[in-house]
């Protein structure tokens, strides 16, 4: 079927279920407590594992004596790192991690040994019998110090503790800056934050010694990638491992990697032949982190007098923590994110990621976006002041539109970014408030974008990024098999809506089977805001494939050409004559009588990267979501406390397949950004010890911290998408820090350049003590807050 003509037809069509705020298909289970998460699983013969966490951040392992623990009654086995030295990482890019530390400890809380016992209590008691001796090395807890350290190396192979470097140059930045009328320049620091999912990582590994097969239940976002990581790391054939993802209690990117616990439980279950459960305590979850990278940024923007942007010159230093993880990708992603959402032609990017003795960051919602947007949107605000152009106007002058091609040849195939800018400016009455509110009250503008899935398949293969298979029969209705994971964002509901739209049948007639590597075909997984766009395409294509078979039967029965049929309210009818119809399930039955079950299959692969430059595989996307945001704040002039009073947001997510879910993504995404802007930071002392590994001291926003919301989904339809929809999960988180920083500037005239914007920083800035001065003073500690808390 010609996809393009189908899109054109559907663009003008009224949808039945797409565009409706239908409740979550699994919602009933979730509000009644029926929904099962990994830790809720109880298998026959279950055993329980606990991990001995390193009490130091950097050191040589001299002794891990587990002999007493092994003899403790109820203990079934104890393993140490050297028994399983195989290294892993995301997609095997520079593998550095091992299930348990081998020879050396690189971060506080790293596992040294693991105990499996008949109860969690016994496993915990046995941990106390493990005798550990570590020769402590100086901990490197600041990226600058780490880079300057030639002899204290975290990984022997990484010279100057450098994990990876990246450089890109498009156009001629030096020339463009020299010719610019206004150049603004500033350095920024964004903190390391944690995903803060309320469900800590949990795994149940169940090895069947009879079949020699392993089933792993784990709250992970990427079932198939996890399956690969397990197979490679514990040396098992891929098809002997089945990964099942139960309900996931929040992911936000932090659950895209294999935690050591998954490998530990798998190894132990294979060894003892019984199911092993390992659920991290909250402190262990924070030690394993995989949250957002702390980042030092130095940015120059050049503008002409009329406000057109001429050049962007960015250099960054990422604090990579102890391991490589997603580091390579985030480094290049920040480069890619500088090309949008403004039409800048001269771009230079230099990035470095260095190892430190800290919990390893990884992927977190608006991966690379928070760092890039914090710097770019702050500098836009500075330029607006310099140029005497309203920040809204300055963004409108430079905003990308449909069809824009970046200097990197990445194309924006659809954009309603300008509608977003206009929407928030109008609703907030920005022009009449900016620069005009009383001292202590401020309004700040920021904007951003995010990709709807990359061009890069996580495991280096040419196969489709998403595949969906559908079975339609009178015995089970329409059953969709698809590998995408619902981590709470609502993909199961959205995919069900898409299938229903094609078939014209109610939601309850569709079963969506996902999150199981045995049942669902390989999928790139839930990351990079790719589910609705990428998997949505696959589900739609599979449904169209199945529907065409059903239509052929109906066409013969009705004496109507198949392409003149439509399907609505479980009736297949002629588009020209409502009286010529057949019940959908009757047509399915007729097909089954002759040919058996109706099967359909469909897949989706985004356009592949073009051009010839370093890092080109990371960044290109078939679609981009856009956001514009305005924060109104109140700054307490005595204490420096910032309170966000009202938050305006406008989203271009194309057609909202489920508007209430889109609103939920926007509101949740903004509040996650607000947490980083104001209160969140993993605090590490000079020895690398995490000082706030709990939800009491590591604050995430509560009901008391959220502002009044005023958000709008702008009218949009991306014709390249399955039903016009594109990403919304990540863009809203990116600009929040900058919107609040810009609002603080508007309120009190001081420009904060670091998050979190604590009362101390604002207070000092208002008194003329620049906040960065304080950060430099504390370089041996790394964090401003650490100094304050550790004195």
């Amino acid at each position, binding site marked *: 079927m010609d996809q393009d003509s189908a899109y054109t037809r559907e663009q003008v069509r009224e949808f039945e279920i797409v565009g409706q705020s239908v409740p979550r298909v699994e919602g009933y289970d979730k509000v009644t407590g029926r929904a099962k998460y990994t830790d809720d699983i109880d298998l026959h013969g279950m055993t329980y594992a606990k991990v001995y966490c390193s009490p130091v951040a950097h050191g040589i392992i001299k002794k891990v004596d587990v002999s007493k623990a092994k003899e403790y009654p109820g203990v079934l086995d104890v393993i140490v790192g050297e028994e399983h030295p195989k290294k892993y990482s995301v997609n095997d890019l520079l593998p550095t991690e091992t299930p348990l530390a081998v020879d050396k400890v690189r971060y506080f809380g790293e596992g040294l040994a693991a105990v499996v016992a008949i109860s969690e209590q016994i496993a915990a008691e046995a941990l106390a019998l493990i005798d550990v001796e570590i020769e402590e090395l100086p901990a490197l807890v600041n990226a600058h110090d780490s880079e300057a350290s030639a002899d204290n190396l975290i990984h022997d192979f990484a010279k100057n503790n450098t994990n990876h470097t990246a450089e890109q140059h498009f156009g001629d930045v030096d020339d463009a800056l020299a010719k610019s009328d206004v150049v603004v320049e500033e350095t920024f620091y964004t903190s390391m934050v944690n995903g803060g999912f309320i469900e800590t990582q949990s795994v149940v590994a169940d090895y069947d010694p009879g079949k020699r097969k392993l089933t792993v239940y784990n709250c992970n976002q990427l079932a198939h990638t996890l399956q690969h990581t397990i197979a490679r790391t514990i040396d098992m054939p891929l098809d002997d491992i089945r990964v099942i993802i139960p309900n996931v209690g929040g992911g936000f990117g932090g659950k895209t990697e294999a935690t050591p616990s998954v490998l530990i439980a798998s190894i132990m279950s294979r060894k003892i032949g019984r199911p092993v459960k390992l659920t991290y305590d909250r402190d262990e979850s924070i030690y394993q982190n995989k949250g957002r990278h702390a980042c030092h940024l130095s940015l120059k923007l050049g503008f002409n007098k009329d406000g057109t942007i001429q050049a962007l010159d960015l250099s960054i230093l990422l604090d990579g923590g102890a391991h490589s993880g997603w580091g390579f990708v985030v480094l290049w992603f920040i480069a890619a994110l500088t090309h949008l959402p403004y039409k800048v032609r001269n771009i230079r990017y230099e990035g470095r990621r260095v190892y430190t003795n800290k919990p390893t960051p990884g992927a977190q919602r608006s991966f690379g976006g928070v760092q890039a947007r914090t710097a770019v949107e702050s500098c836009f605000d500075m330029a607006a002041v310099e140029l005497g152009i309203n920040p809204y106007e300055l963004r409108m002058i430079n905003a990308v539109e449909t069809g824009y091609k970046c200097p990197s040849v990445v194309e924006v195939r659809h954009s309603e970014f300008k509608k977003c800018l206009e929407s928030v400016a109008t609703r907030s009455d920005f022009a009449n408030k900016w620069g005009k509110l009383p001292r202590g009250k401020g309004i700040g503008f920021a904007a951003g974008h995010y990709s709807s899935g990359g061009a890069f398949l996580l495991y280096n293969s040419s196969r489709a990024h998403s595949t969906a298979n559908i079975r339609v029969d009178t015995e089970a209705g329409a059953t969709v098999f698809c590998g995408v994971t619902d981590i709470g964002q609502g993909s199961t509901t959205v995919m069900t809506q898409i299938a229903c739209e094609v078939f014209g049948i109610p939601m309850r007639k569709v079963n969506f089977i996902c999150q199981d590597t045995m049942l669902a075909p390989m999928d790139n997984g839930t990351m990079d805001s790719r589910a609705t766009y990428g998997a949505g395409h696959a589900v739609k294509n599979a449904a169209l494939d199945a529907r065409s078979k059903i239509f052929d039967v109906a066409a013969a029965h009705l004496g109507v050409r198949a392409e003149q049929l439509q399907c609505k309210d479980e009736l297949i009818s002629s588009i020209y004559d409502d009286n010529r119809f057949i019940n959908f399930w009757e047509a399915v039955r007729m097909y089954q009588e002759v040919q058996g079950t109706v099967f359909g299959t469909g897949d989706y692969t985004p356009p592949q990267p073009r051009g010839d430059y370093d890092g080109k595989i990371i960044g290109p996307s078939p679609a981009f979501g856009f956001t514009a945001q305005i924060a109104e704040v109140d700054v307490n002039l005595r204490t420096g406390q910032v309170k966000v009073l009202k938050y305006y947001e406008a989203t271009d997510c194309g057609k909202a397949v489920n508007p209430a879910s889109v*609103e939920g993504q926007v509101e949740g995404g903004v509040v996650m950004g607000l947490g980083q802007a104001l209160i969140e930071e993993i605090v590490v002392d000079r020895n690398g010890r995490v000082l706030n590994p709990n939800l009491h001291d590591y604050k995430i926003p509560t009901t008391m911290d959220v502002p009044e*919301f005023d958000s709008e989904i702008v009218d949009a339809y991306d014709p390249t998408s399955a039903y016009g929809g594109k990403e919304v999960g990540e863009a809203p988180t990116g600009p929040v820090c900058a919107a609040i920083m810009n609002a603080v500037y508007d309120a009190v005239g001081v420009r904060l350049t670091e998050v979190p914007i604590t009362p101390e920083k604002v207070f000092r800035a208002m008194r003329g003590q620049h906040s960065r001065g304080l950060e430099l003073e504390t370089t041996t500690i790394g964090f401003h807050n650490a100094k304050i808390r550790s004195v």
Partner: protein
Amino acid sequence: MKQVVHLNINGSPYDVMVAPNATIADVVRRQLGMTGTKLGCEQGDCGACTILIDGKSHLSCITLAVASEGKEIVTIEGLEQNGKLDPIQQAILEKQGVQCGICTPGVIMSAKGLLNENPKPNHEEIVVGMSGNLCRCTGYEKIFDAIEAVVEGEYDDAATPQVGAE
């Protein structure tokens, strides 16, 4: 030394053998298989484990089973009656106050406790009343919408008898 305690949970009597340091969360999740009560921190920080004891919301991860004898305990499993949802459950479901769902049982039980104490809370009272329940997904907006809809009577038709309240 383990001991037998007699607990009244969701209207049914349970005799369970518990250690003195066993919490109600441990008992319902691990011994009785009622896993609707969630654990997010086990330190009383996140509110995911909220249950009702004599109609008031309590954190089951820091409430000892041995101290709960003779009290009326209600968990998320006890709200739905004969296949019919409590108005708060219905509202959270329909208003999409649920995303990943891990905080949801605690949110619903806290809301229940709040409305038991104050059937007509205003927005500020809802904000304060729900401040002990962390949710990382929703930004709380849709949770407020759901509770306000219940307060305004939008779900009265769906009402089931108040559970766990005096």
